[in-house]
């Protein structure tokens, strides 16, 4: 049905329809909002979106693309080398300043209180007690200088320090045969990863950046750092870690970014 609407009108007729619609709607509007409406205007692109025949907006196409993305998740899971390490670099290679990146601007970085902070544990785990920051700082720490690759294409090298996530999962008695680990964050971000990546030797519960306590813009008090995954898979300001077999999705993943997001 929708497709037909597009083919019924020639481009010139489409423009007429747009003009007519603009006139009719403008008449109904208050003068101030009318000005704004006319300034922004109805566009042909907008009409194309209304008719739903932009090929990317087609429900069938979207479904097909999503299922290929699911197939790509399985391919990446198969490709992933549990012991294959991301390259590590000398400290001189660190990108300065390391870029800030989030789904919001720097002015909205959450201010988490270190004293009140508790890391909560949920799901298929034996020991579900929560963790204070000093308890996390007291665990054995390692550090890495690795490349952070953003889904946008750019990359930057940084130095993160913290607790190997595999050590932490074993310590709390996580069910290592579970499929997913989900993260909920103080900035309302959420994401999830596969168990293979969670147990990878370079996957860190990062508590420091470049030798300093992790600053707010890089995810204070704690973020997950994985050089084997794209940036959006590395959640900051983590509050809850849950081990689960129910697919948890993620903030960007639910909008269409590939779930596995490996690199």
């Amino acid at each position, binding site marked *: 049905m929708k497709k037909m609407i597009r083919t019924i009108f020639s481009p010139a007729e489409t423009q007429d329809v747009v003009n007519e619609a603009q006139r009719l709607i403008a008449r109904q509007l208050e003068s101030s909002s009318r000005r704004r409406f006319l300034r922004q205007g109805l566009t042909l692109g907008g009409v194309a979106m209304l008719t739903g025949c*932009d*090929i*990317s*907006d087609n429900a069938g196409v979207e479904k*097909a*693309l*999503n299922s*290929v*993305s699911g197939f*790509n998740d399985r391919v*990446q899971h198969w*490709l*992933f*080398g549990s012991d*294959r*390490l*991301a*390259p590590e670099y000398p400290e001189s290679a660190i990108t300065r300043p390391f870029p800030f990146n989030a789904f919001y601007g720097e002015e909205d970085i959450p201010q988490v209180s270190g004293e009140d902070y508790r890391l909560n544990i949920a799901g298929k785990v034996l020991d579900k007690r929560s963790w204070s920051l000093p308890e996390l700082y007291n665990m054995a720490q390692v550090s890495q200088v690795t*490349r952070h*690759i*953003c*889904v*946008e*294409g*750019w*990359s930057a090298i940084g130095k993160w320090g913290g607790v190997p996530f595999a050590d932490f999962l074993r310590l709390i008695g996580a069910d290592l045969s579970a499929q997913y680990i989900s993260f909920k964050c103080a900035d309302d971000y959420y994401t999830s990863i596969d168990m293979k990546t969670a147990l990878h030797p370079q996957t860190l519960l990062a508590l420091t950046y470049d030798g300093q306590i992790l600053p707010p813009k890089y995810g204070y008090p704690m973020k997950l750092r994985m*050089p*084997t995954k794209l940036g959006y898979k590395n959640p900051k300001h983590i509050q809850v870690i849950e081990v689960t077999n129910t697919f948890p999705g993620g903030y*960007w993943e639910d*909008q*269409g*970014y*590939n779930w596995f997001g*490996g*690199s």
Partner: protein
Amino acid sequence: MNVSTGEAGSRSEIIHPLWLRLTHWLNLLAVLMMVTSGWRIYNASPLFDFNFPAEITLGGWLGGALQWHFAAMWLFGFNGLFYLVMNVASGRIKRKFWPLNLRGLLADISAALRGKLQHSDPHHYNMVQRLAYLFVMFDGVILVLSGLVLWKSVQFPLLRELLGGYETARYVHFLAMASLLGFVLLHVVMVAVVPKTLLAMLRGR
């Protein structure tokens, strides 16, 4: 009358076998999807001081473009692989593109520049055509290999090092795309000059 005499061949002889025509048109579809979605991905973090106009890109936004790119890559990769394997296995690559020598190439280029190069016999490729088609095969391989490094730089360490690391691979991927477009431009102009080559690619003769 109808006796085939090798290169000269009769009029009704098949120039392009069915597998070649199929892979050619599937490749066109794949390249269209890969290039237009790739432009959208490029726009998210441009390597140079320009963006591709959003109207001529595919995907609507970065996430959509990535979905198109990582879906069409299977078609581009496997269709291309099938084309190369068939080309070698059927002996076509040797028949059509061999020999390729520098002297012949220079002679043909100079003839081409003077507008005197024969390219109207679709049975026979001149040296410039041989080079162009072999180049675009090579370019396609580079596109796939550099794309693999960008997609999974940690999982393909050897490829990553061969291409000079992740950041260099971005430039390699971009330049290979630009080279492909250069080929396509020349290719389409030549088809417009000799339209019967389009017919041959459609119906085989």
